[in-house]
């Protein structure tokens, strides 16, 4: 980003540093001389002084309580699993879960309980778009390996939660799903800029 380099303002820098208490004794003498009877210098000094004061008087906010160590998740775990948290909150909960084994265990137990309930006969199992689903293996002839449009709705829903519960004896993977997850993660790495990414070509 091109930026004009301002002409050096040695006098102003001394004034700023003076206000911050960062001058050597020699520099202090220089500042006194500069301010001695020079109206322009005094005005500049006062102006800097007021600007600095305006910055220092900015209110200091309280940190939101949930960021402090005692902020466990409690009832937000359910909302997290239901995909009801908006992105920022979802992100914060995810970060907390990384760190807090208590909440992680609680999350896993809660998730297991939800699955158990959903598999009871007669229970309404209509899900929102963002709850886990097992990726079905699509029939061979219709399978596309390209990332966009090639992921079935079930796999897409699975991706959305990032936590698919299911599996069992014969896990039904979707190669599109694996490729998407890997490429997305790899895109955070420096090598991604030069090694061509895993964008597969659809079969005709």
């Amino acid at each position, binding site marked *: 980003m091109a930026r004009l380099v301002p002409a050096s303002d040695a006098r102003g820098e001394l004034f700023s540093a003076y206000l911050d208490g960062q001058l050597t004794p020699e520099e202090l003498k220089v500042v006194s001389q500069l301010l001695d009877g020079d109206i322009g210098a005094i005005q500049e000094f006062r102006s800097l002084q007021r600007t600095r004061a305006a910055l220092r008087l900015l209110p200091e906010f309280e940190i939101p309580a949930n960021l402090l160590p005692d902020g466990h998740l409690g009832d937000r775990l359910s909302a997290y699993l239901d*995909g009801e948290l*908006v*992105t920022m909150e*979802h*992100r914060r909960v*995810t*970060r907390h*879960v*990384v760190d807090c084994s208590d909440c992680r265990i609680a999350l896993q137990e809660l998730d297991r309980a939800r699955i158990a309930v959903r598999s009871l006969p007669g229970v309404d199992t209509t899900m929102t778009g963002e709850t886990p689903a097992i*990726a079905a293996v699509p029939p061979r002839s219709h*399978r596309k*390996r*390209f*990332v*966009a*449009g*090639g*992921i079935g709705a079930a796999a*897409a829903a*699975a*991706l*959305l939660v*990032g*936590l*698919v519960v*299911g*599996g069992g*004896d*014969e*896990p*039904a*993977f*979707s*190669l599109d799903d*694996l*490729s*998407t*997850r*890997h*490429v*997305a*993660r*790899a*895109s*955070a*790495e*420096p*090598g*991604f*800029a*030069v*090694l*061509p*990414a*895993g*964008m*597969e*070509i*659809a*079969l005709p």
Partner: protein
Amino acid sequence: MIIRRLLVVGGLVAVSAVATVGPALAEDLSDYLDDAANAIYSGQRLIGTKWDGIESVGIVEIQHHGGMTTVGTESGMAMVGDGRMHLGGPDEAAISFVLETRQEFGGRYSVSHGEATYHLNRPAHILEVVEDGAVRIRMVIDNSTSAPVATKVFDADGELFRYSSMVDFTVAVDPAMAQTDGREYRMMMPLGEANLPAVVAGYRLTDVYAGPQNGQQAFYTDGLFTFSVFTTRGRANWSAIAEGEYPYTTAGRNYLRVITPTSVWVLWNAPATAVALVGDLPPDHLDEVLAELPFPGTDNWLRRMWRNLFG
């Protein structure tokens, strides 16, 4: 047999000595990678992989802007970068990875600068990534944008393994592509512990996430190449899941392998665990990695009993 479109790509890189002052060359690979990540360009990129006599080629539209890449083919598009990806339109999946650590660049590779050259009539220069004294990657870098306009990845014998080349190049992107989309990304959930080794054949496990089928995704990198290992309990019917897979044998062990223009998938079942490896690593690295991951095999009751009886 997988048929891909095979394009004639002769004459893409004309090497000539140019006696002008070159661009400021990156001090090391990580500097260059930073520049490449921020480059702005668009065009068409040809990509291919050659492995054991199998060649898989394709061509994609690329828009590269500020760390994000938009990739399109006739089937649709995806936008990826910075640990996020979203597919197609606003209703399609969008995922995002939280990175816990910032990895320091690995010491496995060093960089050597080669001669000035041209690509698509634009001044460029060669940059070689060297591993153990041999050239692993040869890149043609566009001088003005630092974009990697051509790349060749070699296996341990110096044979070409993967290549890519911009066949059309513009220093601009479609402004619509560069818009922030305000989309909500779903975070992939990081896990505390992995069930795989922390270091595998020079690759380091950097993070683990909840993976598909109630399993895990373990992500490995050596500072340049990367792969993910997906594991879950059970045994997957990989032949039914994969298409165009080939049997692959290394050191007497049998796997299934899928080769695409940009990556390699290796699929197998270890005892009671389905495993899939997805990545862009070269063949010799892959063999070393497979030697340190769980081996394919069954773990039936007879074998267990045998082991219990006879050790």
